[in-house]
């Protein structure tokens, strides 16, 4: 048992850190670190830089452009990118549909879509949830009827993150109503520019446009866009869930946010001294810091098992639940740290080029919005309640 990084891993960290420091555009990192609003271009710019470097598809098999990094190296990479303020790599193409196409797609799909995912030429969104199908995703109703060499798709998807920027959508659609509901689901790749596709914004509680509804009205989708076999979509979707998930805890990201929290709490004053010295506040910060320390080690245990080709232990299942709770704790503490100055709602002030007045310290402006926005993390990706159901059944056998 040895919790130290190897010499090679330390050298790798230096290499990543150096690259990120010199190649991450300063205007982008500033936005990320200061919790400012990111546009599509901010994500794409960084992803293209990683693509040029050959570091974009870290988890993919080497023959498809992957880096052959170990899970520990992928963890280090995530940490260094987060520390420097790199935008999160949008997962839908690189970490979701990409691996599905690699595992189950046709040669044509691999040849056509994979390079465009890696180069960020296509922006992907996910078409899973529907108004009537959230946690009970298998009950989904969006239909795809085979007509000659096309499918005709009708239905509605919801909660599509960044659907407003998307070129492609990977969709779970119902191709059959016979048998068990899971057995009638297929995995279809839909061009978002097709006639009949309508994207409508959903404004979330903090006032931002991040998610959407998508309507499909008689959308013609070429049959060659079906991934694998009809009726196997549910299997492919589940594959995604068991696929490398060590990034799901967001440890590197939370470590950075914790540093930022301490920074804010050192600037804020309460009772004649910096808030970070207030015993009650300090106690809560210490608790989340210790939770995060433990989660990092739990995460590394999972990564090490993955590296060694071992089956994940029960600790793997807690990463999403605990990771998102810590993320939420951090947004909550940051909002609390600025006291009354969490209240002003000035969305312009967390845009990129705001040079107007602030109400309170400039770092306070986005904090309530982030607290509100992060309530989503315990809901998406399989709600934390569903996660507990799954763990109870699959891990504890209850």
């Amino acid at each position, binding site marked *: *048992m*040895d*919790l*130290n*990084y*190897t010499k090679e*891993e330390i050298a790798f*960290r230096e290499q990543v*850190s150096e690259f990120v*420091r010199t190649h991450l555009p300063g205007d982008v990192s*500033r936005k990320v*670190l200061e919790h400012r609003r990111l546009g599509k271009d901010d994500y794409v710019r960084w992803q293209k830089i990683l693509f040029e470097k050959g570091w974009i598809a870290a988890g993919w098999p080497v023959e498809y452009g992957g880096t052959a990094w170990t899970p*520990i190296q992928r963890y280090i990479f995530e*940490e*260094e990118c987060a*520390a*420097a*303020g790199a935008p999160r790599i949008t997962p839908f193409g690189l970490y979701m549909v990409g691996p599905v196409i690699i595992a189950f797609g046709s040669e044509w799909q691999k040849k056509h879509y994979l390079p465009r995912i890696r180069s960020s030429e296509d922006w992907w969104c996910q078409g899973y949830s529907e108004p009537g199908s959230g946690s009970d995703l298998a009950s989904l109703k969006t239909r795809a009827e085979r007509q000659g060499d096309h499918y005709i798709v009708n239905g509605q998807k919801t909660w599509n993150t960044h659907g407003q920027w998307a070129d492609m959508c990977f969709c779970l659609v119902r191709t059959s109503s016979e048998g068990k509901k899971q057995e009638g689901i297929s995995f279809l790749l839909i061009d978002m520019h097709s006639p009949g596709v309508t994207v409508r914004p959903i404004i979330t509680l903090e006032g931002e446009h991040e998610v959407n509804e998508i309507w499909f009205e008689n959308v013609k989708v070429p049959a060659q866009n079906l991934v694998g076999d009809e009726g196997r979509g549910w299997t492919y979707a589940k594959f995604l869930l068991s696929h490398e998930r060590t990034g799901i805890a967001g440890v590197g990201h939370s470590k*950075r946010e*914790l*540093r930022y929290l*301490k*920074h804010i709490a*050192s600037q804020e004053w309460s009772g004649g001294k910096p808030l*970070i010295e207030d*015993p009650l506040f*300090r*106690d809560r*910060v*210490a*608790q989340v*810091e*210790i939770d995060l*320390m*433990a*989660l*990092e*080690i*739990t995460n*590394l*245990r999972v*990564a*090490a*098992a993955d590296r*060694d080709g071992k089956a994940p232990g*029960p*600790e793997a299942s*807690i990463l999403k*639940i*605990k990771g998102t709770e810590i993320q939420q704790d951090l947004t909550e503490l940051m909002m609390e740290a600025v006291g009354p100055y969490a209240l002003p709602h000035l969305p312009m002030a967390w845009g990129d080029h705001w040079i107007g007045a602030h109400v309170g310290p*400039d*770092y306070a402006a986005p904090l309530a919005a982030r607290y509100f926005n992060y309530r989503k993390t315990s809901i998406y990706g399989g709600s934390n309640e569903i996660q*507990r*159901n799954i*763990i*109870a059944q699959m*891990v*504890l*056998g*209850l």
Partner: protein
Amino acid sequence: MDFSLTEEQQMLKDSVQRFLEKNCSFENRRRMLAERMPMNAQLWEGLASLGVLGVPFSPDHGGFGGGGVETMLVMEALGRHLSLEPYLATVILAGGCVDLGGADWQKKILIPKIIDGSMLLAFAHAEPNARFELGHVETRAVRDGTNFVLEGEKTLVLHGQVAEKFIVSARTSGKIGDAHGVTLFIVEADEENLGGQEYPLFDGMRALDLQIGGVKVGPESVIGTLDAAMPLIEAVADRAMAALCAEAVGVMDALHAATVEYLKTRQQFGQPIGRFQALQHRAVDMLIHLEQARSMAVLAASRMDSQNVPERRKGIAAAKEMIGRAGRFVGQQAIQLHGGMGMTDELNVSHYFKRLTAIDILFGNAAYQRQRFATMDDNQPAAHLRAPRKSWVKI
């Protein structure tokens, strides 16, 4: 980054587990509690012949040469079986003082006897006014020629009642709270001017309060350097906390498994109660706490012998905090999920819960550890897994 055990470690783990399963049953515990036994001499002999008492000591003295991981494996097994034996008191605490601070001639005399089970030692450091503060020592050792006369009160001396000798901390200079000026002494338990009361702790372990009314000891009884014992005491306390973290994981692991088993077998409303979602979620939350605690016990084991003292102290404080907090949740919820049966003394569940509660208190509870942790440095994030970092934000 390796979390696996070597073959040797796995063998140690298995052999301790097998031995305790056979010899450290819940019936054994009942009997010991009923008869107010501070230890089971046969069990101790068995541990000795297995080499378990020698795990942390150098092969030069007949030990196993183990480090933090080996100690963790032993302690986890002891926790799983709710051992009442003086492993912490004799091997980790007093043995740690001798091992880390003793002169060669002292080690040669004492350590082999600890290892073969023939000598029991206890660590007399805590004092009535100290609460959790390790550095608060009022007991004094006044020079008398080349000798010292010790005067003061020690409390909560774990397994003090079976000890042949005490390792006693006393102030040889400076004032209460000074980092400098504390010295460790070996004191024979049969000294005339030593008085005490022995008592049980709520988890079944037993301890001693010691009144030291002018006990004279020679210069050869000093362990380590005069006036400079605090770093040694802190190192030993860190070892003890790491050991307790591992023990707690063993307790939590057994408790969680027992709870899940109960959920599968206990029937109400015509079905196993484990089918009810509220209880499923509770069992999962227990698992989350358990796995987080396990991760921190691993960290503590790896930090225990670190040469980087601030990193060691911080990692172990964090681990002790997590263990206290997680142990409280797992213990409370185990009782809850066992319903009325969880409330009985008869069932082992409450015994596990009480041991977890005691572990939290020993050497400072979770709240105390959070305070220690948060004030240890200039609020930089723990460097337990160090990453070189450039300046990261310009506002």
